[in-house]
């Protein structure tokens, strides 16, 4: 596989977009990955599932606005340069 840095950027944008479109109440709660199921144990060992849910929620909160800008730039560039 011949990677380029452009491929890496593309992959990162695609993955972040994929995490950002997971809807909270239509999808995540239905499969038991909602926000309230993530804060289970209060020990010092949150467990893998709680960490994953935390990660998804924080990615969605933090990356929402930058993703909008990055996606707009990508759309414009792809329209101009194919």
């Amino acid at each position, binding site marked *: 596989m011949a990677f380029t840095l452009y491929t890496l950027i593309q992959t990162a944008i695609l993955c972040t977009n994929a995490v950002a479109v997971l809807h909270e109440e239509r999808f995540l709660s239905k499969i038991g990955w909602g926000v309230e199921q993530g804060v289970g144990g209060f020990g010092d060992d949150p467990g893998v599932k709680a960490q*994953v849910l935390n990660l998804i929620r924080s990615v969605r909160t933090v990356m929402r606005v930058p993703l909008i800008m990055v996606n707009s730039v990508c759309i414009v560039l792809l329209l101009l340069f194919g």
Partner: protein
Amino acid sequence: MDLPHHGYRSTKQRTRGGPPSSDSVLFDDTSATAPMNSQGYYTPSGYSVDGPSADLQGGPGANNLFTDPVASAAMMYGSSLANQGKDMVNKEISRFMSVNKLKYFFAVDTKYVVKKLMILMFPYTHQDWEVRYHRDSPLTPRQDVNAPDLYIPTMAFITYILLAGIALGIQKRFSPEVLGLCASTALVWIIIEVLVMLLSLYLLTVHSDLSTFDLVAYSGYKYVGMIFTVLSGLLFGNDGYFVALAWSSCALMFFIVRSLKMKIIPSSDSTMGMGGAKPQLRLYITVATAVFQPIIIYWLTSHLVR
């Protein structure tokens, strides 16, 4: 060579109130250039070598660049602008990554590099794998051979790219774009590996003191093995390639397991609840990292030796 100094002294005396009468005959040649010298105060020391020729030729035509006050003022302005730009760049970079932490990784010396390379290629006789600390901060690589550094991975990466160019050239498949492609592929694999390591350490709540640069260092050590493999593949053909691949894979796996075991798996004798993750999960991470190394070595070098 007395003339340049006399020229300098004559300018200083001229600003104070004129030279003594005995010197005026000797230094009439520089009088045309002296007033222009005294404005740019650093120019006399800057071109004292040109002093004699200027005195001998006499006349402002020989040194018009530095004696022109506008040019010297522009030079000073330009250098102050460059300093400002440098300060700004330093400030911006230090917002993203701390340069002091990076300097720690490059504080190496020859003895450390030689010992570390030998450990990377033959780690089975190394006894003590603990990273020594000095009042809560890790020792620099100069003082502790177990400390990770970024000098060896960087140099090994560049050497690997050059070796890849040589190998492709031997097979008459070389072109400059291929070199850039090889470099960016290797870089992307490093980035992927570091991201996967960070993600797994975060998800399994392993509280270790491995920073990002430590992970970059540990994943860059495989390039030493790759260089050895490619070299023996070029020198000894396919058999040499596989023998060297097996040797450097085993050595690297041993090295990674022993090094990361110290950091990820707590060596104290308390059982669970120490740092939040079960010991077997930590072992899985260490072993998975170790197993990943030979795969990557094979992937990135096999196309060079076929």
